[in-house]
């Protein structure tokens, strides 16, 4: 059928699962359509590695299971993209870095293993900021990924825009209909910020909800895997398979995984939604203020109670993050020595080999963060910087713990702007860091948070709303996000001429 290809790409996971069950087409059809779309859209540079042979073999296995009535899960036969931070057995895994040149893991990350055990199909590995350090996908050794959205008016017309980062390839691939869903990881906003920039749904679960085993480490006290999808329901379906206790990650939570999809009942009557006054920035563009106001109205219309709250240490979240995350990164990235895997540049002696390998293997942003991290952990500075940042992190978490007495969840914008042009903010690291101003506080407190596409701005670019909940309340966070999704009626997609709302 001539028309099937486009239609297959435009399904949600939920719709695709239903159609597979009804025998409308096979996982091999679905997978083939996405593999062809990936080839057609190579210009976006959203994949570092494409896995067509593996994908078709996995799809064939899924089709065999379904034909025998042995479907494993709602993800059985669903083609997904995996961020290149997840180790995948027998498939190049780079973290977007030259230092992992040629690294082919001999093991599978727990989260990706869980997805394959649920029957999902691996399409390929997605582009990302090097070691997940960035907010624009411009620090990747494999080149920047391009946001499939284009501005329809204003200064950005005709320019390639960033997809956000660090999970830029994962968000761009889902937005461009190259995958039905993808995995991301979020340390300070790396799932939510690119999801907002690309007009898709991105969920960062509670720290510990998904195992970190086999995910290349950036900042171990913050890193968390989560799904990127085109609907809140799909995020619920993916999280249910990704999450769970793992004895191989001592920080993974030994709690049952609920049925997230069943919590999407549209009923938020009586829920109290907090609006933190500290998130109202003087410099906030009107379009961000507007989408936030619309979000409040939607939730009130659905029966929620919206209240003003205060999180007094909000302004210190970003600077404390930029001590703690680099400190942990400098420690985690000490393992890249050129000896056991990845790049090796021979030097005059062993230390020279380490130094030359790491100089050649790491890009500028990673080097900056290793240097900052080494500095704040060094003798004489540890108490003033690292220990103080850990204390501020306690204060930030205490702020959230206090407001949970007054409200059930918090609503904020996801980002302080829409996507910007590739090349912007490159000379000023702090300007780039400010992209994560609304996402970092929840990361510092380990809380679940989701970005949902909520509006198209006057330039024709998507804007997201951000819902934060108490630890392990993914069900509530998803339920509120589902209500926002229904009210927002966000149907625009980057592959078509966009109708501007309002």
């Amino acid at each position, binding site marked *: 059928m001539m028309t099937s290809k486009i239609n297959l790409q435009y399904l949600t996971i939920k719709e695709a699962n239903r159609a597979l069950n009804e025998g409308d087409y096979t996982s091999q059809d679905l997978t083939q359509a996405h593999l062809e779309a990936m080839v057609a859209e190579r210009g976006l540079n959203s994949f570092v590695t494409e896995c067509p042979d593996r994908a078709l073999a996995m799809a064939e296995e899924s089709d065999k299971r379904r034909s025998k009535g042995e479907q494993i899960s709602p993800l059985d036969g669903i083609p997904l993209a995996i961020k290149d931070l997840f180790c995948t057995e027998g498939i190049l895994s780079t973290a977007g870095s030259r230092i992992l040149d040629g690294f*082919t*893991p*001999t*093991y599978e990350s727990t989260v990706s293993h869980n997805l394959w055990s649920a029957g999902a199909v691996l399409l390929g590995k997605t582009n990302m900021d090097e070691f997940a350090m960035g907010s624009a996908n411009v620090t990747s050794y494999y080149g920047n990924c391009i946001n499939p959205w284009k501005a329809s008016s204003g200064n950005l017309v005709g320019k390639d825009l960033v997809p956000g980062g660090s999970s830029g390839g994962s968000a761009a691939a889902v937005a461009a209909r190259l995958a039905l869903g993808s995995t991301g990881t979020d340390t300070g906003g790396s799932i939510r910020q690119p999801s907002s920039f690309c007009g898709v749904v991105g969920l960062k679960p*509670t*720290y*510990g909800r998904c195992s970190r085993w086999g995910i290349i480490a950036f900042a171990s*006290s*913050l890193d968390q895997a989560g799904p990127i999808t085109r609907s809140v329901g799909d995020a619920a379906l993916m999280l249910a398979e990704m999450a769970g206790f793992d004895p191989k990650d*001592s*920080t993974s*939570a030994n709690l049952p995984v609920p049925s997230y999809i069943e919590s999407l009942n549209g009923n938020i009557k009586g829920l109290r939604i907090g609006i933190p006054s500290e998130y109202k920035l003087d410099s906030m563009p009107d379009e961000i203020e507007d989408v936030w106001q619309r979000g409040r109205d939607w939730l009130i219309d659905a029966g929620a109670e919206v209240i003003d709250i205060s999180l007094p240490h909000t302004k*210190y979240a970003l*600077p*404390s993050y*930029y*001590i703690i995350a680099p400190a942990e990164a*400098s420690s985690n990235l000490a393992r890249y020595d050129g*000896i*056991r*895997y*990845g*790049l*090796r540049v021979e*030097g005059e*002696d*062993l*230390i*020279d*080999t*380490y*130094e030359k390998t*790491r*100089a050649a293997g*790491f890009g500028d942003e990673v*080097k*900056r963060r*290793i*240097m*900052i991290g*080494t*500095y704040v952990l*060094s003798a004489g500075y540890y108490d*003033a*910087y690292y*220990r*103080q*940042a*850990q*204390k*501020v*992190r*306690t*204060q930030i*978490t205490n702020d959230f713990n206090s407001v949970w007495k007054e409200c059930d969840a918090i609503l904020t914008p996801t980002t302080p702007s829409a996507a910007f042009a590739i090349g912007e903010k490159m000379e000023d*690291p702090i300007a780039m860091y400010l992209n994560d101003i609304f996402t970092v506080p929840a990361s*510092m*407190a*380990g809380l679940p948070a989701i970005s949902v596409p909520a509006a198209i701005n006057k330039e024709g670019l998507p804007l997201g709303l951000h819902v934060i909940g108490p*630890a392990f309340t993914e069900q509530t966070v998803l339920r509120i996000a589902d209500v926002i999704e229904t009210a927002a009626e966000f149907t625009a997609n980057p592959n078509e001429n966009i109708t501007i709302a309002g």
Partner: protein
Amino acid sequence: MTLDTNTVRRIARLARLHIPESELSHLASDLSNIIGWVEQLAEVKTDGVEPMTNVIETESHYREDVINDGGDSAKVLQNASDSSGNFFTVIKVIE
């Protein structure tokens, strides 16, 4: 706090990063800006506040003291840039 080029050279050595002399002053300026920005944390009153070490309280769990993994030296060595027998090889480190 402004980082001078000597400090940057020392930190680069600790971090095992070769930074060419020509790049030291630019890097010193970048790092000074970032450190200057994070120093606003000094104004936060943290007397009596415990530093956070574990954001989500999880119970430590015991496991059986059994061997359940290992014996995979071929897998471990598979990605080595140079190996010999069951060993990684490095440049001579003992004079």
